[in-house]
């Protein structure tokens, strides 16, 4: 894997910010896009744009087949058994809302329990909370351990006869923890409880195989895996998706409509009301192809080394405390510094050309757990380098002197 060649694939990385070379370390929020993704989408607009599925003309057939090929490509990427188990959504958030609504409508009754963890992003917390309120069900929140990991024993004992669905993040967007989802799913299935996996922070950093995990649902966002915004994927097991009522109504999701009766379309279209974001779906395919062309295993190895280096270097800074110290982590480095507000550090790092995130990262319960108001979060991706980490450390030291 030649890092300098990879960096050339990402035009945005070449620029300077406030006269300093951009160091982009906000990858957990969104990743930058390689030329191939931008070109795939441009090409579609230049040559093939046409609404999909309904047209009988050439352009519509071509764009329909490009869209459906993208679905097939994504199904293969995550090793789904069937292509129709891939539902396109706007992103992970919409995928969680879809399942919380549709699965919830059918399966959640008063007094039932929904299990999530304390480290969930608000997107994997609020839709379940809303479902619980709608159905007078209970949202059970499994706390995490001090190092930011989950205890399998506590997880097992949190599952009761009333538990109807479990939703867990694969990788925490604040702590960086890689959760043992495969083992958790096995435990949940012993109690016949389906599991939803939020893969928003794992799909770009780990190999994800839905059949190997045996997850019942899994979701991720295109823009966090070098693809465009506005597209995401919900994977669901055929049987579960088939049994669920539709989420939104409109075009595409019906097979026939009369004034008295509506017949819903088959999977996956049943869950894709309205004109799909076919341009972004094709962009997402290009992004995944980009990763696969480099080789996912090479990406994983490169990021693993970079992450270990970054952790080691950051910990050399006096007064820096890492938030989330689980044994298995990826990409995300959240930390606080003695006497320094994350907002101040984030603001000043920006002036050195370094993009990090500061604040609660849409995971306020995690902040409450540690009794902190926020963290500084640097998150690495495949185009980051050790030299960039060195610059980060150098500037953290420099700004620390000014702020304290």
């Amino acid at each position, binding site marked *: 894997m030649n890092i300098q060649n990879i960096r050339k694939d990402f035009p945005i990385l070449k620029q300077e910010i406030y006269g300093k070379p951009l160091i982009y370390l906000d990858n957990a929020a969104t990743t930058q896009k390689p030329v191939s993704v931008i070109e795939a989408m441009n090409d579609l607009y230049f040559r093939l744009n046409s609404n999909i599925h309904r047209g009988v003309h050439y352009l519509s057939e071509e764009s329909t087949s490009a869209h459906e090929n993208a679905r097939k490509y994504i199904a293969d990427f995550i090793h789904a058994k069937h292509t129709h188990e891939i539902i396109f959504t706007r992103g992970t958030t919409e995928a969680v809302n879809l399942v919380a609504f549709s699965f919830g409508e059918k399966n959640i009754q008063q007094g039932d329990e929904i299990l999530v963890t304390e480290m969930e992003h608000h997107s994997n917390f609020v839709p379940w909370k809303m479902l619980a309120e709608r159905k007078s069900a209970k949202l059970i929140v499994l706390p995490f351990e001090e190092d930011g990991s989950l205890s399998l024993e506590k997880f097992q004992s949190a599952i009761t006869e009333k538990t109807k669905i479990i939703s867990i993040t694969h990788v925490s967007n604040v702590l960086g923890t890689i959760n043992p989802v495969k083992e958790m799913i096995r435990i949940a299935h012993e109690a016949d409880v389906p599991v939803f996996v939020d893969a928003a922070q794992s799909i770009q950093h780990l190999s994800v195989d839905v059949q190997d995990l045996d997850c019942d649902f899994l979701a991720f966002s295109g823009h966090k895996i070098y693809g465009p915004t506005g597209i995401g994927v919900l994977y669901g097991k055929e049987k579960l998706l088939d049994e669920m009522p539709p989420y939104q109504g409109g075009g595409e999701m019906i097979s026939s409509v009369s004034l008295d009766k509506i017949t819903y379309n088959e999977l996956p279209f049943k869950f894709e009301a309205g004109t799909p974001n076919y341009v972004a779906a094709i962009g997402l395919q290009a992004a995944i192809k980009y990763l696969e062309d480099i080789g996912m295993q090479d990406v994983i190895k490169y990021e693993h080394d970079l992450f270990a280096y970054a952790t080691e270097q950051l910990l050399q800074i006096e007064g820096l405390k890492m938030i989330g110290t689980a044994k298995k982590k990826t990409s995300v480095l959240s930390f606080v510094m003695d006497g320094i507000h994350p907002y*101040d550090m984030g603001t000043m790092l920006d002036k050195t050309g370094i993009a990090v995130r500061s604040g609660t990262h849409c995971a306020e319960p995690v902040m409450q757990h540690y009794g902190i108001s926020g963290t500084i979060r640097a998150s690495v991706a495949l185009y980051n380098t050790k030299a960039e980490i060195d610059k980060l450390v150098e500037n953290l030291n420099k700004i620390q002197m000014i702020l304290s």
Partner: protein
Amino acid sequence: MSIEKKQNAIIEEFSIFDDWMDKYAYLVDLGNELTPLSPEEKTDDNLIDGCQSKLWIIVELKDGKMRFKADSDAIITKGIASLLIRALEGETPKDVLDAELSFIDKIGLHQHLSPTRSNGLLAMIKRIKAYAMAFNAKA
């Protein structure tokens, strides 16, 4: 000194910085110089809760002039609050109400007033204006 003149003085003060780091180091100094609020003054009523940083503000009217106290858990937010106070302190509600706070933009700190910035500064200005409006109506 009118609000306009005070704003111009601030703009001139900041014009000497050609490096962002120096500019922020100065803001940090200003933040540190601003008298902190006592724990009793940091009430929920005085709090403007941005999602990134917290900002407390106390607004009073004494002898027809507006007086301010502010504090923040983030020092840069506090530094900018201190500049806002400097521009508006001791002015009449009417002048505060009419003031266009263009200096923030001119010294290159407009990003701190973006609605999505979540540091409470925009809300601070809105609250000051609301107080000024109420004081002005009573006068």
